[in-house]
């Protein structure tokens, strides 16, 4: 199961109106290729901050669901982000970490997530629910329940490195267009 495979299962099931914060690197590109929506925010820089951005949206709009699509390299860069999410306990925040134990977009250099269990770190931090799936079947079985869970919930999805090269084109939106698009989708004037 590659990132693209996993998103082919997850993306169509995301409920309308859910804000999706995509980490930088290949996750945003694959997420945009799988299903672009006005509520999607794609980081192209600021590595590590997807969970932080997600908790900011979740606190500002407590009645809206927020889904963070993160990666192992990103989570490892800002482990404190897991702590902050777990401490603030936003019930409307779901956090997925696609874990291929690699910095895929910079040449697949290994990360340390093979020997450091990020799901166990999230559990120890105090997420309300933590799960881990390693096969496409397990992911397909978990997705509907996960998307309905009370947050903060953390799902680690073990994935394999995809074929060399990016899993989708660059994000077609300019950064400032994305800001306006997400804000309008959330009912906020730009």
């Amino acid at each position: 199961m590659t990132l693209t495979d996993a998103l082919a299962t997850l993306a169509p099931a995301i409920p309308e109106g859910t804000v999706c914060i995509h980490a930088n690197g290949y996750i945003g590109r694959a997420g945009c290729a799988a299903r672009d929506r006005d509520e999607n925010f794609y980081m192209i820089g600021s590595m590590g901050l997807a969970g932080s951005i997600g908790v900011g949206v979740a606190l500002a709009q407590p009645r809206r669901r927020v889904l963070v699509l993160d990666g192992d390299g990103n989570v490892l860069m800002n482990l404190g982000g897991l702590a902050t999410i777990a401490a603030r306990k936003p019930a409307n925040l779901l956090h997925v970490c696609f874990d291929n134990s690699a910095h895929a977009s910079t040449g697949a250099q290994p990360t340390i997530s093979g020997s450091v269990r990020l799901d166990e770190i999230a559990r120890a931090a105090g997420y309300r629910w933590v799960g881990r799936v390693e096969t496409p079947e397990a992911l397909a079985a978990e997705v509907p329940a996960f998307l309905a869970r009370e947050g903060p919930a953390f799902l680690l999805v073990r994935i394999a490195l995809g074929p060399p090269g990016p899993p989708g084109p660059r994000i077609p939106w300019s950064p400032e267009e994305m800001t306006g698009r997400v804000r309008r989708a959330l009912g906020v004037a730009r």
Partner: protein
Amino acid sequence: MTYAPDRFVDHLLGAGFDFFTGVPCSLVKTVLAELERRELYLGDTREDAALGVAAGAYLGGRTPVVIMQNSGLGVSLNALGSLHLLYQIPALLLVTWRGFEGKDAPEHLVMGDVLPRLLDLFGIPFRAPLAETMDADVRWAGATLRESRRPVAIVVRPGLFE
């Protein structure tokens, strides 16, 4: 002359700021205490993470303030460069000025020396208020931020707050 923290928080709220995060510094401890008393402050683990939370809050319709020591401005530069400035996501940075005029503990001297130049280099407009100019400077921060959709900074000199 010092400035009262409760009056400062009132002015921030009056200027439209409604989301407060950051990492503490002793120069603003009374401001943080006032924000905590009003249950308005959500501290974070690192200054760049606080900027990430502030960016999310802005996407959700809030107007954020990120409080930090100037040491944390160094931590924040990538978030400012590749998130806020790039995506036109504003935030008021309330940055304390440790190392002011070279009189401080040694760990603050380098950042204290370069602070104004660093903000200039990143194109972040700032004011370093005296108590007498504070009200106008907070209004300036709110107006400039809304107009430019960029981060602006208020730099807090030692002894500014009660």
